[in-house]
């Protein structure tokens, strides 16, 4: 099913370009150009805030949901509601979904596949009006509160670099890699 193409000169232009490229006297690329400088360990440490599912990147410190709830009410509830279900912004807690119409409710408790992602995201981007302002201890506590509010850990559970990656998220089993591929099949 070839399309009609508006140019009689396509092939000629392509050939001319190939000729031009093969005749060029440009230098071959070196192995390295030598531009830029080596990054110091210190400056990498200041930037490297990501946390992987295996816990790599989690800082020292700990927190629990009791402390987390206080921080949540002070710094998060204005956008996410008194208990994490009311909004107006993203719903964080599954709660009672029987009153929700139409769209699937996507919350930490029923949609997020990794608990470490909560820590990573809250630390890098929240609160929305003061991103990156929380201490690591505050982030551990908030993560504990959000996981507890979703019924995933006990109220008194201490979260730290060792215990957080071990929290099993219910939605993880639903995730599958992209199965679409080139060709005619619609997926």
């Amino acid at each position, binding site marked *: *099913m*070839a*399309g*009609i*193409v*508006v*140019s009689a000169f*396509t092939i000629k232009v392509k050939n001319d370009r190939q000729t031009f490229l093969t005749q060029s006297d440009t230098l071959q*690329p070196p*192995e*390295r*150009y030598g*531009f*830029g*400088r*080596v*990054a110091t360990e210190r*400056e*990498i440490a200041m*930037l*490297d*805030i*990501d*946390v*992987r*599912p*295996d816990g790599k990147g989690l800082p020292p410190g700990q927190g629990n949901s009791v402390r987390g709830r206080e921080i949540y009410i002070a710094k998060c509830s204005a956008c996410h509601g008194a208990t994490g279900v009311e909004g107006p912004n993203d719903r964080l807690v599954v709660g009672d979904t029987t009153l929700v119409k139409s769209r*699937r409710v*996507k919350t*930490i408790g029923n*949609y*997020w*596949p*990794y608990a*470490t*992602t909560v820590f*990573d*995201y809250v630390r*890098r*981007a929240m609160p*929305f009006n003061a*991103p*990156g302002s929380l201490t690591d201890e505050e982030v551990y506590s908030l993560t504990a509160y959000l996981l507890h509010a979703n019924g995933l850990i006990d109220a008194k559970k201490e979260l730290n670099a060792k215990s957080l990656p071990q929290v099993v998220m219910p*939605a993880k089993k*639903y*995730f*599958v*890699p*992209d*199965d*679409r591929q*080139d*060709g*005619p099949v*619609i*997926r």
Partner: protein
Amino acid sequence: MEIEKVNKISRRKLLGGAATAAVMLVQTASGKAVQAGFTHAELDDPTKVPGVLPGTLGSRSPFEKPVKAPSSTSSRTPLQDLYGTITPSDLHFERHHGGVPAIDPAQYKLTIHGMVQKPMVFTLADLKRFPSVTRVGFLECSGNYRGADDGKIRPQEICGLTSQSEWTGVSLSTLFREVGVSSKASWFLAEGGDSAVMTRSIPIKKGWDDAIIAYAQNGEAVRPEQGYPARLFLPGWEGNTNIKWIRRIEVSDQPFMTREETSKYTEPVADGKIRQFSFTMDARSIITYPSYPAQVEKGYIEIRGIAWSGRGKIVTVEISTNAGKSWNTAVLQEPVMDKSITAFRFLWKWDGSPTEIMSRAVDETGYVQPFLKQLLAARGGNMGYHFNPVTAWAIERDGRVLFRAT
């Protein structure tokens, strides 16, 4: 100095009379105040007064007012008001997760570390010293489909989170060689310098294949809304992976499972499954003329639109003018480029009877743009990201053009 200044002023004054008159005329031509001393005929005839002198920046005609349609999270390109395939930079769609940051290019740094021989920091000037590449490519948000039951919806709202630019920058593979990416690496994290510190994990292969750290867009510096001073550009891949304001790349042997690639840009599909890392944008097209809110008349109508695929080149766009009963091949406008928007057109004679017109893109892998019902069937009835259905326009007896879901 003083004399030169005086001379300059007096010379300006001398020429300024004409220039000022011309400026007044531009205002008058758009229907504003008529200045004393000119007759109506003089004011409306641009051949009767000298024009505006050369300036430092061009500007859009005051008669042309295309605008993006913003919400609190995005702003949509007015596809129905555009021509050709390149989106004017100020009309390129916007989607960001913590607003547009103000970044001083003199302070800008890109750090590459992780599974590399030599972790490195590159300034903007460093990036520009490397050999450059330029290519045209579309960008599309993966959440880019809307409909309307009453049919009163423009291409801008249906799929206006699609735009196209010519991007210039350094190949990421060049930087990968410079830092010595490990042969064991399989993923890299791309991180933005915005207040969301936006992150996505990208397979390392894409970085070697055709990824660009772009610092220019349509011949000038990348716009702030598009990632100034530098952004990741991944041809054909969903918009949010093209991290803007890129500040850091960490090379790894596993994905980082960031919030965007787990809780956000994933889509529920059949059997309760959630599809993840769906990077490629499937082929799509839309007729941008005639489209709502245009009204057409009987006789010749050139149906025009755009088609694109994240899998390669568009090879065919098919048009139906009888609600999908039969299909004909549209003319594709050269150049037809890889992972780029291609313009199409189809000359049609409308007899005045109500009908539906629609377009269907086919890419070089043989993918055929599906109808909405096909997509829903393939995904267990779920709507969500990566919805690229055929879009139909109903032509009413009175010439009104209204959206129809397919």
